[in-house]
């Protein structure tokens, strides 16, 4: 074939007569192909929309209002949430203003307000991979209270270790949450009640200016995940969330 030679519209049949390359059936097939392409496009767009909507879905926000210039945030940690899509995942829960436990790790507080945090820790613990996070930092007085007793450092290699931390890295806040006796019958379905073994950790800090501040647990507690840092450790609503500070 020479350069620039175009594909002929007709091909020669065996008898030498010219026959059309595109017949009626192929013309219909062409229309069908267009329809199929349109249908696939719609399906792909719908799938993309579905994926986008799912990615955009996030837990609800518990709003805390200030009272006498202070905000009281209450949370709990449980070794396994016990229901839903991930019943075996470790998780935080947040108590809303009405006193009901919500499966969310997003909560809002006013700016420049004293935030008093109470965490009911229902999970077991272990030695920390880095004892540096066994100390309390960033809170008022760099101190916290464990079952009513103030502490600044907790040796994670003693007694029942540390189960989790509550940490807001951008504010330098980090508080270790001591573990419970693993041989006891621990709460396995959230929300847990105080009938189960637990530790109560309280501390306070001043909220900063408006913005979203990520907080998380720094103990690799994602059971069964590589380095313990996958699954619940990487999912908002379980072991990490946001403190939304409003003006």
């Amino acid at each position, binding site marked *: 074939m020479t350069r620039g030679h175009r594909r002929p519209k007709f091909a020669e049949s065996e008898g030498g007569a010219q026959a059309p390359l595109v017949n009626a059936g192929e013309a219909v097939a062409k229309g069908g192909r267009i329809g199929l392409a349109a249908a696939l496009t719609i399906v792909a767009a719908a799938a993309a929309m579905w994926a986008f909507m799912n990615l955009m879905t996030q837990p609800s926000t518990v709003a805390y209002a200030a009272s006498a210039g202070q905000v009281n945030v209450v949370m709990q940690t449980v070794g396994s949430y016990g229901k839903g899509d991930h019943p075996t995942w470790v998780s935080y829960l947040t108590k809303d203003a009405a006193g009901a436990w919500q499966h969310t790790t997003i909560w809002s507080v006013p700016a420049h307000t004293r935030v008093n945090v109470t965490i009911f820790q229902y999970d077991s613990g272990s030695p*920390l*991979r*880095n004892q540096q996070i066994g100390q309390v930092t960033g809170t008022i007085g760099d101190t916290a209270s464990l079952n009513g007793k103030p502490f600044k450092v907790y040796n*994670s290699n003693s007694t029942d270790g540390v189960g989790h931390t509550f940490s807001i890295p951008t504010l330098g806040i*980090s508080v270790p949450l001591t573990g419970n006796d693993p041989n006891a019958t621990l709460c396995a379905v959230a929300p847990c009640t105080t009938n189960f073994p637990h530790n109560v950790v309280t501390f306070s800090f001043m909220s900063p200016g408006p913005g979203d501040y990520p907080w998380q647990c720094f103990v690799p507690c994602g059971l069964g995940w590589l380095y313990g840092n996958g699954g619940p450790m990487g999912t908002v609503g379980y072991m990490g969330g946001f403190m939304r500070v409003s003006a």
Partner: protein
Amino acid sequence: MSAAPDSSSSAEGSTRHGVRIFAIWIVLAIVADVLWIAFAAKHIPPGRMSSTATGAQFDLNVLIEMVIPVLLGVWVYLVYAIVTWRASRGGPDPVGGEAARGNTTIEASWIAITTVIVLFLAGFGTYELVQPEGAGGAQGPNPIWTPSSHTVLQVQAIGQQWKWTFRYPSFGGFETNNLVVPEGATVQFNVTSLDVIHSLWLYQLGVKADANPGQNNVAFTTPQQLGYFNVRCSELCGIWHGAMYTTGKVVTPAQFETWATQTQAQLAENTALLPPYSLTYTPDANGADGGYYPTNDPYSPSETYGATAPAGS
């Protein structure tokens, strides 16, 4: 149709155009380079907060100073050609000049100029890569280009999902979230990781070093200005990688001494629980409830990074 141009007048015309283009180019290139040095050079990242940052800024400016004449050479020729040899509406068709093929002068000049530029950049880049003290890049556990200063402050940067902590072996080995370094002192960063690969990026100090578990990666710098600098992880290390940042600070030597001494005392209780200072660590196998940390230590000189058992336990 226009008559073929006379060859002598054609050569004369080419020379005239060449001189004009060269004159315009050389003037513009000098002016642009001078303007760059006067107004833009000092703003080029990463700034001049440290010896290594100053070096990186200088390197970028040298490259830009060389790029500007090359860029202008192309643009001046392009604009000159469009203005001078364009076909005017209703006028005669433009007449082509001599073919460049076989023009020994052009070919030799082209090869010589580009060769000189490339060889210079190769030599310059290689030299700048090793000074000062490795140009802020990490050199592995046994650095080749070391500082001449005899007083080097050791600071260990430990990456872990998802935060940086810093140990100061000269002050009892305390470990803190805060990176504070003194102005004028050469700092040796010993960078390692407790889990996956991270990368320590001290942006305004011009320091960047991968943090590998079980490895010590050394980088040097000498802070030259007081102020704050960004501390980031520049290696995608997991879901909260984007939140793995903090702010470091360069202070006066007196302020640093005060801060380090006070922090050493303040963190003494926790420092006593840390493993002894070591260049690498293996995370405690028990340090993650669900993790897959190794149960044996593959790095014999490492310290296991777990809290020490209390006395009598």
